[in-house]
């Protein structure tokens, strides 16, 4: 267990949690975050999402939605997802508000906007530690099926990075190889702590 990983998506519910759960199961040191301003879950219609603050426990959301419309939220998979999440950690965390969580080696994001937010946040922080951090973005659509695929890909990628003595030397090849193998776009950047 050499590196510390962070999985980041918008609401810290679906994509990042899927990857978090998977990497955790594989014994990697992993945390997960969201970069949005709120946690948003689908509601009865597109215009009526369920909005929570970061830090609201998954359990609370689970109970609330189950009370509201168990049929609907079971059908769209939200309840199952929340159940999975509450077994992984307590509550969704916002990336920007958790700078105190310590130093990560690798951050995976699942959306360009999130990637930009993470990089911006890292660049706005003081960088006294002189420690490099690898930030990678893998575009994953925000639905359950894609999240499952995205999680597996993230795991594969992290394992590959873990297997390298110094990722800085090989990252270009790793990324290019990954893109070729999975026909998915991957972008990385380097920032500092």
């Amino acid at each position, binding site marked *: 267990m050499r590196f510390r990983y962070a999985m980041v998506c918008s609401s810290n519910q679906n994509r990042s949690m899927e990857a978090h759960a998977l990497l955790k199961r594989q014994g990697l040191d992993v945390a997960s975050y969201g970069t949005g301003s709120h946690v948003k879950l689908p509601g009865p219609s597109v215009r009526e999402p369920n909005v929570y603050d970061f830090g609201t426990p998954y359990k609370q959301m689970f109970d609330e939605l189950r009370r509201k419309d168990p049929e609907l939220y079971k059908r769209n998979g939200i309840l199952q997802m929340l159940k999975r999440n509450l077994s992984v950690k307590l509550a969704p965390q916002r990336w920007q508000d958790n700078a105190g969580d310590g130093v990560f080696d690798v951050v995976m994001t699942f959306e360009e906007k999130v990637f930009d937010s993470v990089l911006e946040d890292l660049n706005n922080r003081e960088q006294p530690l002189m420690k490099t951090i690898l930030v990678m973005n893998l575009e994953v659509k925000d639905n359950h099926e894609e999240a499952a695929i995205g999680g597996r890909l993230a795991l594969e990628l992290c394992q590959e990075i873990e297997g390298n003595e110094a990722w800085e030397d090989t*990252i*270009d090849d790793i990324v290019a190889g990954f893109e070729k193998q999975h026909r998915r776009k991957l972008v990385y*950047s380097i920032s500092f702590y």
Partner: protein
Amino acid sequence: MAAPAAATARAQALSLLAAANNHGDLAVKLSSLRQVKEILLSLEPSLSAEIFPYLAELHLSHEILVRKSLIEIIEEVGLRMLDHSYALVTVLLVLSRDEDPIVAKKAISVGTTFYCSILKEMAMQFHHRGKVDRWFGELWTWMVKFKDAVFSTALEPGCVGVKVLALKFMETFILLFTPDASDPEIFSNKGSRQMFNISWLAGGHPVLNSASLMSEANRTFGILLDFIKSAGRLPGALTIAVVSCLAVVARKRHVHYNTVLSVLLDFHPNLETVKGCHAASVQYSIRTALLGFLRCTSSPMIESRDKLLRAFRAMNAADVADQVLRQVDKLVRNNERAARENWSGKTNQAINHQNSWDLSKKRIMPQGEDDTINGEVVAKRLRHNTNMHLAPQVQTSDSPQGHVSINGISSANHPTDSELTPVEQMVSMIGALLAEGNRGAASLEILISKLHPDMLADIVITSMKHLPSSPPTLTTSLATPGDIVVSSSINSMCSPAPQPQLHFDPTLPAGSSFSDVPSFNNATADPRRDPRRDPRRMDPRRSNSSVGPTSLPVGEGKEPVPVQMDISTLPSKPLSVPVVTAGASGSVHPTIVERSQNKVVGSSVIWDQPDCREHLLTIPDECAYPSKGRPSLDVPVSPCRDDEGIRETKFLGSETKCDLDLVSIPDFDQHSPSASVPDFDLHPPATSNITAAEESYRELAAVPSYIELTTEQSKTVGKLAIERIIESNRHVCGFDCNNIRVALIARLIAKIDAGNDVANILREHISVDHREFKGHELVLHVLYHLHSMANLDTDESSSYATVYENFLIAVARSFLDALPASDKSFSRLFGEAPHLPDSALKLLDELCSTRHDPIGREICDSERVTQGLGAVWSLILVRPNERKACLAIALKCSVHSEEDIRAKAIRLVTNKLYHLTYISEHVEQFATDMLLTAVNSETDLAQTGFIAEGKTEAKSQITSTSDSPRSGTSDIHSQQDLQTARDVSVLSISEAQRLISLFFALCKKKPSLLRLVFEVYGRAPKTVIQAFHRHIPILIRELGSSYVELLQIISDPPKGSENLLTLVLQILTQELAPSLDLIATVKHLYETKLKDVSILIPLLSSLTKDEVLPIFPPLLNLPPDKFQLALAHILQGSAHTGPALTPAEVLIAIHDVVPEKDGPPLKKITDACSACFEQRTVFTQQVLAKALGQMVDRTPLPLLFMRTVIQAIDAFPTLVDFVMEILSKLVSKQIWRLPKLWPGFLKCVSQTQPHSFPVLLELPMPQLESIMKKFPDLRPSLTAYANQPTIRASLPNSVLSVLGLDNGQDSRSQMHPSEATSSIHGAALT
């Protein structure tokens, strides 16, 4: 007691260290080290220090983890006792070059911490105590070594991870030693986290030399920039790290912002070819950096917003940028409001300043505007020149001010200094370096060579701000010490002299004066013929296209101004000369310059007198002075004979100098036309070098003095010369030294008029070396030269025009043939060429709209189309003159029969062009015309002709505004349109698609256009309608929630568009619940104009019960299929509200419709009922039961009630018991009194026997009797039933008598139960 304890601790530590060194087990080693650390931290610093040397030995350990822990100990312990950390710091130095990357990285990061804290401590100590301890000095020398080691790590090959950290250290270094204008706070006021900054050393420091540190920081900055320039050879991770470091520097030190920005914007390496470099990520890192700039609210960033936005548009990331901008603007507004009061004065200044910057950059402008700028700049220039000698004094007196404010001690006295702009900051930095004397000069050179041209120009302008408004008296102006300073500063600003790559782009004016020489004989000084008016020189794009790092600043900053002065007729023009000559002489020999400079300044003052001819002649004299005695001048200027690169380079130096001298001369020619060639002849010593240059010209081009060449021969020689120049160019690589070659090639091409064959020679050179060897520059030089020749009023100008055209086309084709489609050279060439002839546009047209390349070969590569359209787009943006023609090409492609081309063109037109206000109208008109063409197609042939004419008119409206040269293209168009018009009478669906696609694409951008679609829908032919139906769903879905315009159309649909309207509504409601607005609009429409209830069908699912019930009757009246649909919508409801009506309610609602009153005939209602019964899964047994149960209680009973009951029992025989209950209720309601229902009742009863027997028996006697009469078949079975003992007992006598049971008929009745049961089965089966 303390001493023995300490001794024990020491002994313990030593033994632990020995274990750490020698023990075989790694775990033991590490734990021993941990214990050592504890001991060291607990001991007195001086005692710990005794152990340090032993600790330091561990760096030789073979265990990586031991070395790593050692560094960690050093970090923890050493920082606490800096004064004793000498031994530890040396370890860091060694380990920073460790072979293991982890150790090396750790050492660098800890070393950096040491570096910063030592620096800070030293500055603090001096600040507080006025002196610095000696050990600091020693420690610092080690830190300097550490810095050198890390820097070399960054530059040498090695592990990327370590290099990345080394780069980060460089960034820190730059930040430390570049003054930070945004944070002038005094350090002692801040917390301990405050980072050191060079401004702390403003008052001087015994150990640290601020000037040399600053210049080293600048050098380091240069190193980082060099990294970017060589990105093609670096691993991607390294490039990304450099970009990120540069971005940090730019954001934190605004001095460097413009430089970084221009470097990042110009960063387009061909990374795909580099192995081990992930191009997308590198590009993205640039994007991230630019996005970071966009988020900054400091003035330089805000000023460059347009540039940034353009860059984002080019990256297709405009929306991201816009989003960020919105956030930032909000932030800025808030800040501004807060800071408005104390800022107002400052802001005005800044805005003025910014304006002048902008204006000076935008040099292509209407004449009127131009004049004002000239006036403004000239006025400033004037002041600057007359007071030049004062400027340094002001500067030097300025710099202490800057320091003072940075010190913060007396900052209250200089409130404005606390917010220095980057430029002011730079000025103060230059001032500080100048104050350093010789030592500073070297740094200043480096600094200035790295500056962005705009920045440099700004520095000059800004420094003028401090000049006094009235000119000083002449006597005081001479030979003040300040003069010397300024000349040296100018000298270094003008770039280091002895190097061959110096210049302020001298070739252009030089070349121009060459070409002007013959015309001097005419002694006519037509200002139009001044080749320096060459538009290229005023072209702002040039500053982007030129990447020559050091040379251009001067060219940009200085040259244009004198040019503008030529145009204006201010009396004191000659004053511009000192600047130019200062530059010129500065480039020749720095030491002499200072002297000559003084003279020049002196003479400049005297020139104010009316007769300047005398002094004109003194100038060349002075300038020539330093170069006298240089033998190279006598060498005949013929590059053809120059075979050796070295010699040529030497020669270049002298040539350049001659050019520079010439630069100044035409200025005077303009002013006093008589002072031309004859004058030079009268003063041979003064003009020796000029005549040399002239000779060289003759020899080069056409008029050989010794041998008479035929035209053919001269052409051949010329060609050979070109080949040679190009060949030599390959050997002498480097960015700058080929400018003279470029100029020569341009003239040679013009001279030998060789069009294609020379272009072929060049082509290879240009396209192969397009980037690195400035092929693009070369082509543009040639083109501009040819263009200026063509514009001259000579007989040959037309032939030059041909040469120009041939050359341009040949180069363009060569790009298309040789370079990949993704290459930008082609569009760049067209974008920057001085003029685009028709043939160029034709080439572009071919490229875009045909699948054959010019030679006729089939290209299956649609990339070329993209390339062509890309070029069209950029031309529309940057070339107003060609805009119409290019737009015509784009529009033509947007109705191209090839779907691929069409799609691309449509994307271009709608996404990029349509939002340009100056062409959106044309685009819209064109799209409308095409749509109408499609719609009007199905008319008879006579009309077709009419349409075709109309079309042509509309078309030529678009092109007519363009100039006459475009008529060719417009002809092509109208022909094509005629063709189209003839074809459309048999319009196929694909043809209809072709014509209407653009319009629908535009609708996405401007939904109000949709109205036209609605208007023409009614009269459109079938195929067109089909095409409409294909487009509408996509369009409506993309419009999504923004259908405000759509609502307007819906609220007032044109006649004939009902079907379309219904379709639109269907789509709108398909995926999302319709908005309240939409529902209201449609309902209103239904109530007022359009009585057709079918438009409400798509909305039914969102309507409430109360809304649905009133429209139920008209719904019933619809054709069956539509009613089915409506029914489905009603029952489906929205996910949110649930269905408007439950199935039972629907059934009841159907029954509630009274045929006479509401319109729908009875037939429709029965059909509706049947339709319900068909959906057995929806209208289930329970539903029916519920509906029937509710209806039976109604008074009056619905007309169709009995019918439905019968149908129900038919459909669900198991309902029989329930139905019997209903029937029984009906009996109690005296159903026989309702003539319309009674027959139904009877039918039902008869059908459901024997279950209905109990009900029958409930009937009063008369009714029973009539039934018996009516259905005689019933009697036997009913009698049998009634005859059962249990039942019979309960029956009244009257009933029994009706049934004839008053006497016994037992035998019969006993036979029947079995029959009865069988009939039940029979009923059940039906």
